[in-house]
């Protein structure tokens, strides 16, 4: 694995020197936050919505709303200007009109704020000379002693401090290892919400919009060193400097997994080129190569990104070549084998002794104790499942165990027995037992929980599955909807740590 000592260009040192002057701690965990651009007259503009979102999150620090008209809002005094606020500030959130951003940012700098989040749009993204000039002003002020996120962004989500995106008052306050960087605010906000049900817990999520000052390169390096972050995900459309980006990506990837989703990939397109090399080297293939060169993980869409992050956050970081698979239905076993092969993973046959033990635990007809294990039922009670997974973990070729149970069959089963679905099959008991297996064997279990019943007539099933998912996630067991998705995510972890070739 490469380290920063390999950095030949000195880019690392330059960026590090800059980062030293950046008080990220005060930016992500501010104690005193000003919000410039609240509306005192009862209207709900951007500033007010941000204030309400921050309060909704239960932000624990002090909030200072600002509007030249003064007054009161949401139980807080409105200051007429940033300078009027008594004492210092850590972070200033700016939601005033574009023309008024400059003096507010200047005032925030003079106040000693470590950073500013400029939500306001109307800058470079307009493509007009005025917009570009305004952005240049932001960059200039940033260069004089305050770091800027934005403009044209949703800001910072940090569950630990309670900072949130514009306009999300109800994101999780539970912290975790996943960091996410995105130019797009919508993408950042959606990813934070997807993570809530998928089981991702975040350290820091930054939507940096136009990236006038802080952007992908510096933030990657910061997160690479951030002890609160264990895996970095990133959505990128374009980068300002390819060379610096590759260096930063190498730097971060040498320290922790970095998952990259590149938007706007296309083939070579209309370039006039002579050689075959140039015609083959379109932006897509070059981007793929650069991500690999940095040792980062490439994903194709947001779902795959979230799934990879889940696997990286819950599975211990090592190679997982050999998998055991146990569950209901022979076809699922076949699907698992196909998916494993496509992801560079193996489902090796159990050694004879393990196979005999497993077969002794299975119902007589239709069941199979080879790997994949077919339990000949959509699901079976937690206790024998625990025994099977304890037995299969004993095979030294097995690095990780995949469980496939089809709980959507529980509805008819429960009705026949006159029980509730929870009574008919306790996912909590199963989750407890499986957590025990993982602890005793040291081999992670991944749960595949498909639910083909998601329509309005099956909302009870949707709820049952959501709760089952949560029970497993709470016990550190990753859950995926589909076999292929699980394999792909496990494959990313395997290749990242095993360097098992191209993924």
């Amino acid at each position: 694995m490469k380290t920063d000592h390999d950095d030949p260009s000195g880019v690392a040192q330059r960026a590090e020197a800059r980062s030293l002057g950046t008080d990220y701690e005060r930016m992500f965990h501010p104690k005193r936050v000003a919000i410039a651009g609240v509306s005192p007259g009862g209207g709900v503009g951007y500033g007010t919505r941000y204030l309400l979102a921050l309060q909704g999150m239960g932000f624990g620090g002090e909030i200072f709303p600002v509007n030249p008209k003064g007054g009161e809002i949401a139980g807080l005094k409105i200051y007429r200007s940033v300078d009027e606020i008594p004492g210092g500030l850590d972070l200033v959130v700016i939601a005033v009109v574009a023309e008024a951003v400059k003096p507010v940012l200047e005032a925030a700098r003079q106040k000693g704020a470590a950073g500013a989040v400029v939500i306001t749009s109307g800058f470079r993204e307009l493509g007009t000379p005025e917009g570009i000039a305004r952005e240049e002003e932001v960059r200039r002020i940033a260069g004089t002693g305050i770091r800027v996120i934005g403009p044209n962004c949703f800001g910072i989500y940090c569950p630990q401090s309670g900072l949130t995106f514009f306009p999300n008052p109800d994101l999780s306050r539970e912290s975790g290892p996943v960091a996410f960087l995105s130019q797009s605010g919508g993408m950042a906000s959606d990813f934070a919400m997807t993570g809530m049900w998928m089981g991702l817990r975040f350290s820091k999520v930054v939507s940096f919009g136009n990236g006038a000052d802080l952007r992908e390169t510096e933030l990657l390096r910061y997160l690479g060193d951030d002890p609160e972050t264990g895996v970095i995900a990133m959505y990128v459309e374009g980068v300002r400097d390819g060379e610096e980006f590759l260096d930063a990506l190498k730097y971060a990837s040498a320290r922790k997994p970095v998952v990259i989703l590149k938007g706007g990939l296309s083939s070579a397109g209309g370039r006039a080129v002579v050689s075959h090399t140039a015609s083959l080297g379109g932006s897509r293939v070059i981007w793929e190569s650069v991500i690999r060169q940095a040792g980062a993980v490439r994903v194709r869409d947001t779902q795959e990104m979230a799934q990879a992050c889940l696997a990286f956050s819950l599975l211990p970081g090592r190679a997982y070549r050999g998998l055991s698979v146990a569950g209901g239905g022979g076809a699922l076993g076949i699907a698992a084998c196909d998916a494993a092969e496509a992801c560079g993973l193996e489902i090796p046959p159990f050694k004879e002794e393990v196979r005999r033990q497993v077969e002794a635990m299975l119902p007589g007809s239709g069941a199979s104790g080879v790997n994949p294990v077919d339990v000949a039922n959509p699901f079976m009670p937690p206790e024998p499942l625990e025994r099977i997974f304890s037995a299969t973990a004993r095979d030294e070729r097995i690095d990780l165990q995949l469980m496939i149970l089809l709980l959507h069959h529980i509805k008819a089963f429960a009705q026949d027995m006159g029980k509730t679905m929870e009574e008919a099959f306790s996912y909590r008991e199963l989750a407890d037992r499986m957590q025990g297996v993982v602890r005793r064997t040291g081999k992670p279990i991944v749960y595949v929980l498909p639910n083909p019943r998601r329509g309005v007539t099956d909302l009870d099933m949707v709820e049952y599955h959501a709760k089952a998912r949560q029970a497993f996630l709470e016990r550190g067991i990753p859950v995926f909807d589909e076999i292929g998705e699980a394999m792909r995510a496990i494959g990313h972890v395997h290749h990242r740590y095993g360097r098992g070739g191209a993924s």
Partner: protein
Amino acid sequence: MSRESAGEIIARARGEGRKTLSEYEAKRVLEAYGIPVTREVLVHDEAEVPPATAKIGYPLVMKGCSADVAHKTEKGLIRVDVRTKMEALAAFREIKRDLGGHKGGVLVQEMIRGRRELVMGLTRDGQFGPCVMFGLGGIFTEILRDIVFRKAPLDRADAMAMMGEIRARAILDAVRGMEAADRERLADMLIQLGRIGIDLDSVAEIDLNPVILSGKDPVVVDALIVLS
């Protein structure tokens, strides 16, 4: 050949307003960077053919060599497996005729025997600058597109990783009675191609296709250098 001479070749071509180097010139640039190329002699008239063939030895290859003609195979400007003086002289006359008005000579080149053809190249990406390509060569390059890139400069690990990433990577192993390719030598070549991309701003694109494995040793058999 020194690196300065590589710069001179390019400067001269640019001075003449050319967008490409001839194969002969391209190989001198490669040679200056320690990249193994075919032994060859450039001849302009018939009298130079016999001493050239004597120097290279039969069987040999003869090619039209002009900066104006990029893809020689498609234009019928190549004769392979030339075995006698008679054949060599006939080939010279035909190639000269087929070059038509194009300025240039005829390359008398050693014939590299080997069934494994690779490709290497250099392109400049708008975002990442010079990038080196490696992959399956010959006529399969464009059909199978089994290629990978690395941004220059490359370190040895980058070059080695490229060889492990193509789908046809087994072609580099000892297969069907052929020796395993000299991967260290291949890595040197890829690193040096990246070097050219860093050193020589006026080199826009490079194709080395094919790079033939002669036993375990890679040799650049054809080369195209496009100038900016």
